[in-house]
């Protein structure tokens, strides 16, 4: 790892109908609080960025999300990304105008890849994050892209899709291992390494963090420059500061809290 790289610790807030929830393997939901309150707390704790994932299906819920973004922009002065339900450029524009710094696209970008180039053309590649939910397929001996929050499989190879997304203008890849998500067994290092070696843009590792060492593994072994986690922070198991101290003790440069 280049010594000028400073790794980012990124709490993820899954939001539905204006509340933060955490899905375990994308299903069981537990209520974890007000998103704006949590976002401000993470900012104060020294989080480097935040990700809001809107898991609402209804259009009423989407309006609520715009309101969450707008209120967050008034209180939180670190970069934040909003994903979930970004289907067209207009959806991205709404979130960015409300105060988000980046949008992440997932299902709609697989179905219509020009969504990535269209958003990048209007707002710049730096604000387009391509989120990829990937799952190991033993028969094909590779990771396959899943859509709709992990409910729908595709024929798409995750590493190839990441490369294509970057070629289209994605400025960053948010890579979630569906095999690990919610397990607390650590990131899928092989997957993370495969994608981070294939693309030139930053990769954020996601899915499976159970200990602080897992965060460091994602950077040192997986080649990620951002590490994303939810449960270990939401339920008070660990603070951002503890995460950064551990990463620092393992030789990773971080912004101290």
């Amino acid at each position, binding site marked *: 790892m*280049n010594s*000028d*790289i*400073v*790794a*980012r610790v990124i709490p993820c807030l899954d939001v539905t109908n204006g509340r933060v929830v955490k899905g375990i393997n994308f299903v069981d939901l537990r209520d974890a609080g007000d998103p704006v309150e949590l976002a401000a707390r993470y*900012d104060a704790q*020294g989080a*480097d960025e935040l990700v809001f994932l809107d898991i609402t299906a209804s259009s009423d819920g989407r309006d609520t999300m715009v309101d969450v973004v*707008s209120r967050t*922009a*008034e209180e939180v*002065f*670190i*970069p934040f990304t909003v994903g979930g339900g970004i289907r067209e450029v207009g959806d991205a524009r709404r979130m*960015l*105008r*409300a*105060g*988000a*710094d980046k949008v992440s696209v997932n299902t709609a970008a697989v179905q219509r890849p020009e969504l990535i180039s269209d958003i990048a053309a209007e*707002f*710049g590649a*730096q*604000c387009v994050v391509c989120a990829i939910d990937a799952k190991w397929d033993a028969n094909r001996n590779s990771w396959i892209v899943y859509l709709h929050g992990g409910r729908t499989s595709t024929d798409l190879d995750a590493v190839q899709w990441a490369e294509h997304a970057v070629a289209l203008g994605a*400025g*960053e890849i948010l890579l979630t291992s569906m095999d690990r998500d919610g397990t607390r067994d650590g990131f899928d290092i092989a997957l993370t390494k495969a994608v981070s070696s294939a693309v*030139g*843009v*930053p990769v954020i590792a996601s899915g499976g963090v159970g200990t602080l060492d897992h965060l460091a593994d994602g950077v040192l072994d997986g080649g990620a*420059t951002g590490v994303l986690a939810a449960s270990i922070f939401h339920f008070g198991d660990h603070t951002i500061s503890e995460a950064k101290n551990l990463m620092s003790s393992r030789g990773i440069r971080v*912004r101290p809290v």
Partner: protein
Amino acid sequence: MTVRPRVAVLDYGIGNLRSAQKALEKVGADAVLTSDAVVVSSADAVVLPGVGAFGACMNALRDVQLEKVALDAIASGVPFLGICVGMQMLFDGSEEDTEARGLGVIPGHVKWIPPTVQRPQMQWNQLNLKKDEPLFNNLGEHPWMYFVHSLHGVPNDDSFVAATVEYGATLNVAFRKGNVFATQFHPEKSATSGLGLLHNFVTSVNA
């Protein structure tokens, strides 16, 4: 200070202007997003933000007739802050789009970060301060700021450089020339250190 300084944030349809406005309000300014020459000319300070591509930003600025407005504000002597591509536009031109002409306020050019390191630099990094600059007051010796960029400013005259960071090379990331201050990083997204810098900018209005 009893009256909140009025800060005009130049709105030419590019990027996330709301966060710049909210951050300025947070540190005590009355911040307005505007493309109105009259509003800008009566403001106590002016901010030129920008994200995306150099050429696209210059075109957008010219399309809403803000190029002259920005240059007039600078000539008037009010505190002026350029952020990110808003900083880059103050130079003569950029390697990103060699056809596009910049504002030519800071003589020099914007150049690519060396390809030996991941581009863009999308992370926090620690400043090395090169000037006894009032906007750095109370930020500590090496404040952390948030960056998203693939190019950086190289002025003809090094004395305009106010701060650098190490990223593949020593990159110039803040500049001072008279009433103009400019940052490659995003103070509005740099938590307490960024808000501290903006606070210093806003209070410089009455200084």
